């Protein structure tokens, strides 16, 4: 009886997670170059900020935002950014986008823009993945 209750509770929770539409406070996926990054690199530190694969989702998190807080110009992702400058790139189509990026060993950065999760399972998977997403400061 108790097991049945637990199973019903889990099913109800999954139903809620899967059926309720996802809303995000912001559609921005932000990557920042902290102040002092250039100096750290010059001293031999391997500082990785942008992964070579970025996953975005249409309608939920589909705007790539890059910010350079360092004191020197930096090649960041596809572009050159001045100190204090930000770059905000929206995506409107689900697809795979390739950018030449000298910061990566492969010379490429791939941005995969996925469609908005339409099924309950897709919404559950998106929520779990979002929950497990490491905060950006961990990758600095």
């Amino acid at each position, binding site marked *: 009886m108790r097991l049945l209750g637990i199973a019903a509770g889990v099913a109800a929770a999954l139903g809620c997670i899967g059926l309720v539409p996802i809303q995000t406070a912001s559609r921005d996926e932000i990557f920042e170059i902290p102040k002092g990054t250039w100096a750290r690199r010059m001293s031999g530190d391997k500082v990785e900020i942008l992964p070579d694969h970025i996953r975005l989702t249409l309608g939920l998190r589909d705007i790539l935002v890059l910010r350079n807080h360092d004191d020197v110009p930096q090649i960041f992702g596809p572009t*050159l950014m001045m100190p204090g400058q930000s770059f*905000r790139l*929206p995506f409107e189509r689900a697809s795979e*986008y390739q*950018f030449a990026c000298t910061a990566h060993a492969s010379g490429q950065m791939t941005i995969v823009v996925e469609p908005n999760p339409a099924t309950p399972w897709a919404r559950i998977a998106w929520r779990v993945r979002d929950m497990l997403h490491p905060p950006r400061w961990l990758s600095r």
Partner: protein
Amino acid sequence: MRHKLIGQLNSLRRLAAAVALLQVASAAAAGAPALKAGVFEPPRQAPDFSLASSTGHELKISDYRGKVVLLAFGFTSCTEVCPTTLNTFAVARRKLGAAAADVQVVYITVDPHRDVPARLAKYLGSFDPTFVGGTGTEDQLSAVRRNYGISAEKKTIGNDYTYAHSSFTYLIDRTGRIRALMPYGHSPDDYANDLAILLKE
């Protein structure tokens, strides 16, 4: 008959330009992101350069103040990215109608050995006679690429060579500031949308 056909074509072009402007207005009214391209904030002044132009004169980006500039990098032997991008520019300009007179496409080669001014002129002219190309010495072009954050890597294929190069396009406003970056693959409609916005400023 021919005059009538030309008149009808002009009417269609004016209609397309009006539709493009209406799309911009409705997008702004709906609070959608204004530009389809990635936007720099704050925008910086486009670094000036002096190269040999496909027109036979000197090419300086500062000469185009007052116009909206699409600045792209590539090479005339490119078989995929460059023809697609340049054709997209040409179609976007046509969509803008008369307003396209204030849009200048500037295409700088990464392959100075093959892309001499005459070759650039012939190649660009096949897309749109108003397009302007720039070339120079390896050192000159390398300096321009560095200032704009452009990558270009020469790759040998048998007796031939090609380049892997940055495929995006910079959108430079009438005051000469780099306002946005359009990644490769966007449609002529996206370019027409952004150009119309920048032209109205």
